[in-house]
Structure formats: C-alpha cells, structure tokens
C-alpha cells in the first residue's frame, strides 16, 4: 500500500466512528436510510502536484458510472446498501454497446442514450489522434460510485485503483463521476 504523506481523508478514524455509530447503525437498526445522519467526507489540506504536458501524456480514464463488460465481467453489486468497492478494467477500444452499467443511484436515461456522457472512450481516442493528448491508456478503470463508507474507499477501493493506474503506466488521470 502506498504511504501517503498527506491524508486522503483527514481524521479518517473519527469519520469512520461517526459513520458506524450514526448512519450505518441507523440503517442496521431500522432498514431505513437517513441521509441527515450522513457526514459528507471532507478535507482542509490541499494536495500539490506538478503539471504535465498534455500532448505527451498518457491519460487514463477513471469512471464511477458503474461500467463493466456486458458479456465477460460480473456487474457491480449495485443494490447493496453499503456499496461495492471493487473495480472493473474495460479495454479503451471496447465498442460502447458492449459496456453495461450497474449503478442504482442515478438516472440512466442519458448514459443509455449516449455512453460518452460518462464514458468518453471515442472522444479520448479522437483527442489522441489529434495530438491534444499523447495517448490513452489501454484500459478504463471503472467502479460503482455509490460508496457511503469513505474509510472503505480509502482502504479498499483506492489501493485497487492505484494498482491499476500503475499498470496502465499513465501520466495523468481524467476522473468522471456520474
């Protein structure tokens, strides 16, 4: 696991304790979601990072739309009340009609009409051909963005994503939430 100098989630232990005794306990006790009890994750400290020359950069797309390969990958566990913290790698050249969506927490009307509103694979290929970016990484990193447990995001999801970003040999990442 990468050792981060600056916390990904400040006061993670305190946040996790409040989540567990607040929102999570309420749902476990009642079966009801009470979002008034949910503390949105927050940070105060910024993260510094160097610029890249876009025309020479290999860009990886990280999407929370819940995309997966319809014929060969298991869907995300979209109905799970506490989320699914796994990832699916989808080859960037995949025809858009071979990508299915598993995510129960946004309206799929737009992404069903046009995958590129969340998964801009063809646009990124065009940008690489035009020289705006250096190249696109071989795979898109996908996850399902309903993730109420921010501590699990840090401890489970992010290590998967870091490993994938490393494997893609990316210089830059475009993150597109749904």
């Amino acid at each position, binding site marked *: 696991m990468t050792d981060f100098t600056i916390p990904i989630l400040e006061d993670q232990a305190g946040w996790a304790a409040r989540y567990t005794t607040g929102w999570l306990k309420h749902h476990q006790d009642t079966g009801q979601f009470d979002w008034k009890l949910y503390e949105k994750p927050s940070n105060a400290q910024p993260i510094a990072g160097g610029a890249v020359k*876009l025309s020479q950069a290999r860009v990886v797309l990280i999407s929370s739309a819940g995309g997966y390969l319809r014929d060969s990958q298991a869907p995300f566990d979209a109905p799970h009340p506490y989320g699914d913290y796994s990832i699916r790698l989808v080859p960037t050249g995949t025809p858009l009609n071979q990508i299915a969506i598993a995510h129960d927490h946004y309206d799929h009307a737009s*992404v069903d009409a046009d995958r590129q509103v969340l998964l801009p694979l063809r646009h990124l290929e065009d*940008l690489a051909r035009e020289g705006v970016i250096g190249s696109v990484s071989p795979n898109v990193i996908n996850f399902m963005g309903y993730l109420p447990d921010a501590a699990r995001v840090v401890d489970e999801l992010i290590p998967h994503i870091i490993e994938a970003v490393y494997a893609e040999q990316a210089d830059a990442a475009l993150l597109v939430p749904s």
Partner: protein
Amino acid sequence: MGLIARAVEQFGVATTVATWNGDRTWLTRPPRVLFAKTARGSTLGAPGDAAQQRRVIEATLALLERDAPLEPVTLDEA
C-alpha cells in the same frame, strides 16, 4: 472522486476531475477540478451533443497543464 484524485496525485500521476456536483466534490479538496453546469448522470454534456462533451473534456484536461493545487474552475456549460 475527490478522495481518489488525492490518492492518485500523491502517487505521482496528475489528476483532473469533471463534476456536475461541485460543492460536494470540492469538500474533499481534489488537486484540480472543473465544475460543469451539466446534470447528474450526464457529467460531460447532453447525450448526442458530441461538441459539448468535447468542450467539457478539453476544459477538464487543460487543467493538467497547471500545477496543483488549483482553485475550482467553472465552465459555463449547461
């Protein structure tokens, strides 16, 4: 996405986020973020509007050519 951006940036890979939900995203202090006035479920623009999608993507990618941290940049795309 902000938490993921913070981790990937510290790993040494520059990050940029496009979001329709700027207030929520900014709470986590990602290194670079573009606020688009688009809709939930169609972050990069309207379905079928490839030109708008390209404008949002290119504006988001352009932030990578600047050192982080950046204040959020708002793109007037709706």
